[in-house]
């Protein structure tokens, strides 16, 4: 399994850079992974999306469909891409500590 060092901390990740130890996720881990998206400052808007994804994943074990993400959070998808340049799946889910989605978000 690959590892990645972010802000002096080492994480086990898959080949796409997604966290492999969901149990260690916390806000600091999110901030560390946000740097891989070029995000140096996690705004309130970033946190709204990350917390929604995190809560949904913990409840259902999968990432939500992208339409649901937008509907429940009130964001337009273009805004999600604005906040997470790699998009909801490869960006926001990665920061939220979810495994790489296979076809939902």
């Amino acid at each position, binding site marked *: 399994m690959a590892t990645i060092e972010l802000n002096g901390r080492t994480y086990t990740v898959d080949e796409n850079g997604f966290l492999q130890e969901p149990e260690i996720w916390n806000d600091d881990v999110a901030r560390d992974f946000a740097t891989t998206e070029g995000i140096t400052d996690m705004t309130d808007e970033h946190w709204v999306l990350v917390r929604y994804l995190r809560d949904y994943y913990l409840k259902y074990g999968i990432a939500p469909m*992208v*339409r649901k993400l*937008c509907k429940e959070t009130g964001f*337009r*998808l*273009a*805004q999600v*891409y*604005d906040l997470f*340049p790699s*998009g909801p799946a490869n960006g926001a889910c990665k920061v939220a500590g979810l495994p790489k989605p296979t076809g939902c978000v």
Partner: protein
Amino acid sequence: MSMTYLDNAATSFPKPEETYVFMDQFYRTHGVNPGRSGYDLCMETGQLVDDTRKLLARFFNGTDSDRLIFAYNSTDALNLALLGMLSSGDHAITTTVEHNSVLRPLYHLSQHAGVEVDHVPFDANGFVDPDALAARFKPTTRVVAVNHASNVIGTVQPIAEIGRRCREHGIRLVVDASQTAGKIPIDVQAMNVDVLAFTGHKSLMGPTGIGGLYVQEGVEIRQLRAGGTGVRSAQRAHLVEYPWRLEYGTPNVLGIAGLNAGLKWIEKTGLAAIDAHEMRLMRRLVDGLHEVPNVSLYCQDSLDNHIAVMAFNLDGFEAGNTGTILDVDHNIACRTGLHCAPMVHEQLGLDKIHGAVRFGIGPFNTDDDITAAIGAVGEIAAVRAKKMTRTRG
């Protein structure tokens, strides 16, 4: 917000009301196995199958409706044709503008049947030069397989000219008319086409699961399957006469009924009127997208010899992302990626950026749809441009 459907190159949607109504009505009253028995209902169902063969043969200006073969779709029909026409040691020529419905059967033949395959590139405007194609002819060339119109860039190939060169050399021309049948006129005689493959669910306005071939007189395709025909059951070998030679088992009666209704709708509406409507909208769409900053269009400089199918990208933004935003934020349905036509994207250099966004216009699209599409792409482009400015700043 109602959906704007611009994925007609994948399948036309919606269908004419006549297609839905006739399929429902016919299957309720005639859903029996045609050509297997002699009771009246069975004969009537068989009559619809025959009538639809005649309609289609006439539609393509074929001379013998028995040589109109029903298959599942274009891919199925092209497999019947290409695998039944080529053998070890043969040479086949195709183009880089093809769909996988041609590319993959030919690749299969090259890998497993000793068939040599050449791919002729298209020019900067998306057209195949008949002379460049003819320059690849060899003594072993048996088949040229060409897409009538691209499912990515919408360019209509000079089939009659390619066909003339094939005829001069005794080479068979197989044409994939998936995108054109029901959009623009097809005359297999005037265009020198030996085998025409079509699908029913796109511009012919039928349902999925029905398509076929028209095989010109004098062209023989080896049968690759065998089975029930409903005719001469005591005979051990599969029948060699058309259409049974290339049809196996109970036909798709419901699909044929839908295709019958779709064809009648096209004849009532008029091919010229359908094409004029779609190309007027296409002109607006292309002109509108040209005005959007950072939009790249491919092979759309002129719309001469085009159908209403086009591909584009927002610079620096993956097609899949654009398509998802069009869907989620704007309720616009389109197709992104490689469109089952990988060599088109390779030649345009789009394979490295995961393809393009495709809009396909159909007869039921409206000016409002085009306005919505141009507006949506413009909005996405503006958001991207703002972000790029911020990033640079």
